[in-house]
């Protein structure tokens, strides 16, 4: 009984770490631009696929992963420049469609380059499961969770202690005011996308050895990341992380104790419940519209 619960717990926090990183990416971009980036999941996919590609070229694993993250960050930056900036002050619905279009485009691109098949990445430190009280956890899962924690700490330092980080925070609170004090807000937006992409890419690269990666895994991860971000409160970094882990654990619990068939429905039932009863999420603030 305990070992079963522990097993669900392990799978829950592993997925939770992935969702947390994805959710952070959503919150970052939402804060910087008010845009929900439906292509966020594709950054996760790119991280994994590019890492596999570099690894297949013979590069040592750590280098392949780092380059994959960098390449994904570049993809994020390009997305902002090519698709978001030209749209200017577009309304919500067109913006949503643009990012969905970008998502489809990226999937298509990867499909063309690397085909539709599933790819595997070598685990960082072997694949012998570690046994704890009858439950097993893969070393790669520990890498994923560990990476998640490291990234969150890095981000916290970045936003609180560096100039660029504070500039990004300022832009998210009030773009006009930020511009007036000399912050180059267009630049900040592009950096937000790049950073967001790096987050997704890192999550993708690190979890690729656990779940195979393919051109279409981004969709679900992206959607679940959004659910996690909304659960925690869109725009809140802490909320994104908390939301991610809650979602991961809830999913595992549903798979284990309710029905494994409907496990994937958990995030969507959850999002509807959240949006109806608690749309601001756990850490989101209350907003009033001035008329």
């Amino acid at each position: 009984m305990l070992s079963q619960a522990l097993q669900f717990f392990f799978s829950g926090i592993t997925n939770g770490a992935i969702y947390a990183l994805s959710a952070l990416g959503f919150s970052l971009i939402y804060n910087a631009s008010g845009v929900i980036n439906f292509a966020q999941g594709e950054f996760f996919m790119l991280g994994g696929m590019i890492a596999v590609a570099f690894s297949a070229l013979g590069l040592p694993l750590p280098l392949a992963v780092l380059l994959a993250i960098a390449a994904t960050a570049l993809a994020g930056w390009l997305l902002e420049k090519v698709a978001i900036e030209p749209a200017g002050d577009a309304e919500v619905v067109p913006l949503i469609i643009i990012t969905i279009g970008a998502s489809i485009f990226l999937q298509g691109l990867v499909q063309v380059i690397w085909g539709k098949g599933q790819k595997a990445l070598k685990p960082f430190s072997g694949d012998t499961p570690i046994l704890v009280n009858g439950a097993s956890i893969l070393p790669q899962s520990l890498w994923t969770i560990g990476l998640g924690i490291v990234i969150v700490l890095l981000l916290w330092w970045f936003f609180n202690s560096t100039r660029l980080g504070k500039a990004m925070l300022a832009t998210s609170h009030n773009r006009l005011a930020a511009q007036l004090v000399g912050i180059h807000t267009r630049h900040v937006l592009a950096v937000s996308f790049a950073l967001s992409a790096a987050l997704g890419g890192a999550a993708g690269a690190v979890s690729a050895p656990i779940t195979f990666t393919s051109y279409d895994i981004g969709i679900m991860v992206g959607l679940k990341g959004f659910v996690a971000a909304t659960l925690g409160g869109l725009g809140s970094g802490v909320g994104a992380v908390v939301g991610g882990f809650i979602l991961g654990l809830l999913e595992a619990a549903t798979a284990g104790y309710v029905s494994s068939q409907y496990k994937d429905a958990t995030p969507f039932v959850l999002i509807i419940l959240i949006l109806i009863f608690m749309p601001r999420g756990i850490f989101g603030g209350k907003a009033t519209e001035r008329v």
Partner: protein
Amino acid sequence: MSGWQRYGGMLVVAIIVVLLPLALPNNYYYDIAVRIALNAVVAVGLNLLIGYAGQISLGHAGFAGLGAYASALLTARYGWSSPLAMLAAMLGVGVLSFIVARPILRLRGHYLAMATLGLGIIIYMVLVNESSLTGGNDGMGVSGFSLFGLTLANERQWYWFASIAMLAAILIAQNIVDSPVGRALRAVHGSEAAASTAGIDTARFKARIFVVSAMFASAAGSLSAHYVGFISPQYAGFFHSIELVTMVVVGGMASTYGAVLGAAILTILPQLLSRFEGFETMVFGAILMLTIIFLPRGLLPTLAAVLRRSRP
């Protein structure tokens, strides 16, 4: 709206419908025409929600799928006649969409998008998982459509039937647009504060048009199921929902004929792209992005604006 503006567009579409068979060489082209007409029914209804009322739904394929499966099940398992099954499905979808409409439509923008997305995916998952009823991922076969004892037997017969359905959808949509209800919807889009202080119960109106557009989708779903003779859960899936929204956004928001144009483009596009072997997804995504970036109001309104400006 003057008489010409109101019925002129329909006349043009009707003329095209009547003359088109002269240009269609074989059944393959009739097939595409039928699909365009049926997609147009959904698009026209969805346009009322997205283009006129300014809301969004990323899960509308779910309603089309429910209509399709309801028709399939009622005719196959319970021996209902196909028109009756279609109407019953529309009613059922109407009730369901009404139940979810009030709580969901309190949301706006991205939140509404995600809620409708979630709804669509849940419908999809139920259709996949309840395989004893629906055949799951393998789908299920559907009988032909019979009206007054006559079964629609081939693409040509379906062409006329589907075109009539499309024209009916256009007529109803135009009637809604040019009416107090239509103005109320556009006011909700233009300024909710102004609409509500003018006496419009914005929540109720949003819900009503959501239900109407869901019923349009259900009808199209039922007809598609009978036409193709087969239905699978993919029809209710996320990608199909995106295709439907794309038809509205690309063809023209707040333009019934724009939605028809969008349906035509989005139906023909995959056929054209098939020559790009493997590149279809990429090209589709690129076209989607570029169209919205450079033509945010969609093709038809942009064309209309260009024509208006070039007139002295």
